[in-house]
Structure formats: structure tokens, C-alpha cells
């Protein structure tokens, strides 16, 4: 590598990228020298390496985008010294779907179908944040039953997502039994979602104005059964994993992050809480009815993988607690706001009344106009702060839909966590960051 500076010529002009030796020490110190600054299409030619220098024995390898760790299409460009990871560069974009552009072409009623496919492990949270942003712009208030139904579904999604995480984390660390266990519980939850919303995943159920339909009859028994079963089986997982020496050795002290680093890197969710900062949007900036239910915010101490595992496991328990409270206190009433502008008429009325038919037609084809303005709404998804920045120009389609995806931002803390660890630790750490590439790339 004869040039100190790789000048990458593009149509927009040249962009300079510096080799590690030419990186100013101030910048190296700032990033702890963890982020690998090389162009992504760069092929390291062995002939260019100066073999005389002994400390130039690092190699740059590629992990992904297709690899068996089940976290989707993430590519990591790693600089290795033997087995030890020095610098990393996460390369994303392999699942870029242009959802923000598509969101500008869909009406607000259709927007849920688009947004829900971002974080596909907890799709109702995406719909929730989009609906909250739209309702803030519309200036409508939704009835209490709709709020509590949304809260119930959101917490059930959190349980399902954390179970999925425990399953895949267990498999990444080596325990395929955990994978089968986690999916077994998840099937119960998905069966309930199918009964209530019609689909196992990507439901498009939480819409601006409330929810698409009321909960089915007998839902209390189903949810009660879920809570009971999950609570029992959680103790099984505790027994399988928490006390087990191999699991502990693989997870404790690995991928550690300090509180200042996490805050500086804008990490949220279990990553931030594992460093000891009690930041949970459900408690600190409550939305829906989270200020009326009683639950604990779980925090860790060391910021390592084991803390994040323990946080997620216990968050399942806290979610079950919330779900039980919702079961007891679910109010009666409408499942969506009775505002003619936003809410289509009940399906039965379409056969009876011409007006209802026209109204239904208009809401579903033309859409309703949302007043001009911009708003940012945020919820606590299982991965962190999921935000939606919505700009409206007064028409029936969003002018700009931007979703602040927690995994996109959390991935920046990955190089800092991986530094100094081994390759095998890298797999466990990636898993504990819990990235969902659908929302990373959007």
C-alpha cells in the first residue's frame, strides 16, 4: 500500500479515507481505534504488504453477508491478529428496501403494511410508532380500550422477540436445544397473534385511530395460558443456561461496554441498560398507558453479554407482569376512535348504506388528509428506542417518513465491543447486540 491516503473517486468528488498508520492519533483515540476505515470494495493485495515489518501481520477478513449466524445479512470487515479482533467495520445495506421512499407513495392507512416489515421480529411496535406519529399530527385521541389493546400486543411482541433472541443466542453460543425451546414458546404466541390479528407476522393491525379489530372472544383464556406456560418454561431456560459454566464463560466479560461509551454511541435498549443506565422509554417518557402499570426496569452492571442476556430474560418476566395487569384492567369500549375522517365504517354497514360504502371507499383508496407539520414519536422496542419522524404536507401521503431504527444505531457499538476479543466471541457479541437487518437497512 504505497499511498497513505486512499482517494476514492466517485461521481460526487473524491472522498479521502485514511490508512491506520496515517490516521491522526486524536481520531484514533476518539474511536478507541476500533473502526476500520477502508473502502468496502477494497481488496488487500498481499504483495503490497511490507513483510519486513513484524507488526504488519494483521489480516483483513470478511464475515458475511451470508453466514450461518442467524442475524440476517450483516457483513463485518475485521482486522485480525491471529484470532484476536482488532478493528471492525460493519457493512450494511444488503437488505435496503427503500421503505422510506415507498412510504411516501402509500397513504397513511397503507403505511402500516410498509413500516411493519422493518423490524420483523416485533412488527406491531413499528406500526405502533407510525400510528402514534400520525395521531400526533392528526391531533386525535384514541379510546382507552384501544390503548390497552395496543399495550397488550406490544408486550406480547416483546416476549416473542426476546424468546426469539434467547433461542438464536443460545444457538450461536452452541446450545441448539435452546433454539428449539424458544421457538416452541414462540409458536404459542404466534398462534395467539394469528387468532387476534389474522397473521403470524407483519400484522398491519395497529393503525392510526386505534386497532383494526377488537380482540377475539376468549382472548383472556388464551393470554392467561400463554403467561402461565412462558413463566414455567422461563425457569427451564434459567436452568439450562444461566447457571451453566460453559455459557457463563462464553458470555461473562465478553463484549463489555462502558456507560460513557454507550451514551456517546447513542446505544439504547438492553445495550444501554446493561451498562447501568436505567433508560427505558416506557418508564422515562411513557406512552400509551405505561405510567398506569407497575413493572421494573432491569439494568446490568458490567455491560457484557451476560448482562444483556439476563436483562432480556428478566424483561420477559416483567412483560408477563404487565400483561397480567392488562388482563385484569382491560377497559371496555371502542377499539378505535369514532372520528369519521380517520375510521372506516364497520364492515356490516357497507352492505346497508351507500354512504358507508362511499366512506369506506374513500378511506381505503384516497386516504385521509393529515394536517401539515412534523413530529417525532418514539417507543421502546425490544431493541431500543424506535422512533418515527413524520413530515406531512397536508396531503393523504406522508411527505417524509423516517424511522429511527434502534439496531442501525446499536451496530455502531459493535466495533468497540469486539475489540480485543476472539473470533468466537465476535459471534456471541453480534448475537447479544440483537440486530434485525430489516430495520438496519430499511
Amino acid at each position, binding site marked *: 500500500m504505497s499511498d497513505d491516503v486512499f482517494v476514492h473517486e466517485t461521481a460526487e468528488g473524491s472522498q479521502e479515507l485514511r490508512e491506520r498508520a496515517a490516521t491522526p492519533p486524536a481520531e484514533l483515540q476518539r474511536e478507541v481505534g476500533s473502526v476500520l476505515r477502508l473502502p468496502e470494495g477494497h481488496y488487500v493485495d498481499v504483495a503490497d504488504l511490507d513483510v519486513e515489518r513484524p507488526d504488519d501481520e494483521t489480516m483483513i477478513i470478511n464475515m458475511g453477508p451470508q453466514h450461518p449466524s442467524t442475524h440476517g445479512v450483516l457483513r463485518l470487515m475485521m482486522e485480525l491478529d491471529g484470532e484476536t479482533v482488532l478493528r471492525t467495520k460493519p457493512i450494511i445495506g444488503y437488505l435496503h428496501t427503500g421503505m422510506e421512499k415507498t412510504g411516501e407513495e402509500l397513504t397513511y392507512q397503507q403505511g402500516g403494511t410498509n413500516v411493519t416489515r422493518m423490524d420483523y421480529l416485533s412488527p406491531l411496535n413499528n406500526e405502533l410508532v407510525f400510528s402514534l406519529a400520525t395521531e400526533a399530527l392528526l391531533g386525535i385521541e384514541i379510546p382507552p380500550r384501544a390503548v390497552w389493546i395496543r399495550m397488550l400486543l406490544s408486550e406480547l411482541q416483546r416476549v416473542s422477540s426476546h424468546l426469539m433472541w434467547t433461542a438464536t443466542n443460545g444457538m450461536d453460543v452452541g446450545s441448539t436445544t435452546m433454539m428449539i425451546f424458544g421457538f416452541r414458546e414462540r409458536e404459542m404466541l404466534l398462534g395467539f397473534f394469528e387468532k387476534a390479528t389474522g397473521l403470524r407476522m407483519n400484522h398491519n393491525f395497529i393503525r392510526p385511530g386505534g386497532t383494526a379489530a377488537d380482540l377475539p372472544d376468549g382472548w383472556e383464556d388464551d393470554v392467561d395460558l400463554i403467561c402461565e406456560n412462558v413463566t414455567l418454561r422461563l425457569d427451564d431456560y434459567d436452568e439450562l443456561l444461566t447457571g451453566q459454566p460453559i455459557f457463563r464463560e462464553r458470555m461473562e466479560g465478553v463484549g463489555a461496554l462502558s456507560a460513557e461509551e454507550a451514551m456517546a454511541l447513542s446505544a439504547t435498549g438492553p445495550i444501554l441498560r446493561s451498562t447501568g443506565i436505567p*433508560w427505558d422509554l416506557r418508564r422515562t417518557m411513557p406512552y400509551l398507558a405505561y405510567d398506569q402499570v407497575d413493572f421494573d426496569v432491569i439494568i446490568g452492571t458490567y455491560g457484557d453479554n451476560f448482562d444483556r442476556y439476563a436483562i432480556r430474560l428478566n424483561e420477559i418476566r416483567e412483560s408477563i407482569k404487565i400483561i397480567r395487569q392488562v388482563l385484569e384492567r382491560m377497559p371496555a369500549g371502542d377499539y378505535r376512535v369514532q372520528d369519521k375522517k380517520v375510521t372506516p365504517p364497520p364492515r356490516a354497514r357497507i352492505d346497508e348504506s351507500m354512504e358507508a360504502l362511499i366512506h369506506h371507499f374513500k378511506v381505503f383508496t384516497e386516504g385521509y388528509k393529515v394536517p401539515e*407539520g412534523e413530529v417525532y414519536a418514539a417507543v421502546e422496542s425490544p431493541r431500543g428506542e424506535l422512533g418515527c419522524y413524520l413530515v406531512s404536507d397536508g396531503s393523504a401521503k406522508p411527505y417524509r417518513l423516517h424511522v429511527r431504527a434502534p439496531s442501525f*444505531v446499536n451496530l455502531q457499538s459493535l466495533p468497540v465491543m469486539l475489540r480485543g476479543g476472539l473470533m468466537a466471541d465476535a459471534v456471541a457479541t453480534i448475537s447479544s447486540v440483537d440486530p434485525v437487518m430489516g430495520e438496519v437497512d430499511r
Partner: protein
Amino acid sequence: MGARAPRGRAPGDAEVSGDLPVVTLPPEGVVTAASAGQEIVLPARDRYHDVVAAYRDGGYELLSDLCAVDYLAHPPRALPGGVAPERFEVVATLVSPADRRRVRVRVQVPEDDAAVDSLFDLFPGCEAMEREAFDMFGIRFRGHPDLTRILMPDDWEGFPLRKDYGVGRVPVQFKEAPGPR
């Protein structure tokens, strides 16, 4: 591990000792307003970095979101405080964990000189978000360590989320309707 300690108050600190800088927020001479019940700040482009630094010193230690908007196809808008609207806007949302408050900083970026200061020295976590804004809109961030495409392939031409860039629909055999959807 070598990261800086946060300046201003730490989260959860109720009492503040005298040697921490006292910052008045919002900073002087900066337009503030409310939008849908949320606090927004509209600094001039040359004061953007200092305003965000002031907020950071005042306890807003978490950069929650940074995105860009292209107002090309928007009907003419009037911004509060007589701020001149430009084609692009860079929107940064800051959170104060101690006060549990959010503030949104919106800076206008003109089309012919689409560049603005990077917040990387204040918030290293803005790196990926600024890269995305560059990739999707073509806005350059001065002082960003690695301003390259992040979502699109490296050799992609054009900036997809700009309003003069089409959706890229492929005509489907049975639907000849030209408009979106």
C-alpha cells in the same frame, strides 16, 4: 477504555456541583418554536455545531436521531422566527436523560452548497446516521471521518430519497396505471 467522560450533568444527578459549566438553554439568538407539542430549535447553519454543543453541555447527552428532509416538492412553507427555508433540512433529535426531555434541532441546508458540520466530535454515534443522510440525499458533513455510501452499493449514482429521484417502479404486465400504487 479511553472514551471521554460526559460533560455537564450525569443522568440521575439531582445535585450539581459548582465546577460544572452552567449553560442557559436555549442559547441566545436562536429561534425556538413548538411543533405538534414538541420543542424545536432552528439555528443558522454556521451556528449549528455550537448550538448542539451547548445543548450537550446542558445535559442533552444522547443523540437520538439525525436525518434529512428534501423540501423540493413541498408547498411553500413559512418557518417560525423568519428563518429562510432552503431545499434540505438536517434534523437532529437530542435527549436529556436527566430531565427526560427531547429537543429537535432543524438546520436549513441550501441546494447549491449542500454541506453542514458533522456532529462526530460531539456524538460519535452520529456516524452511521450522517452517512445515511449523505447516501440518501447527498448532503456532505464536514469533519465526518468516513463519508461514504452505507445503504446503496458503492458505485450507485444518484441520491434515492431526493424528490427528483423516481421510485423506480417496474411496469407490471396487468396494471398500466402510471401513478404510484
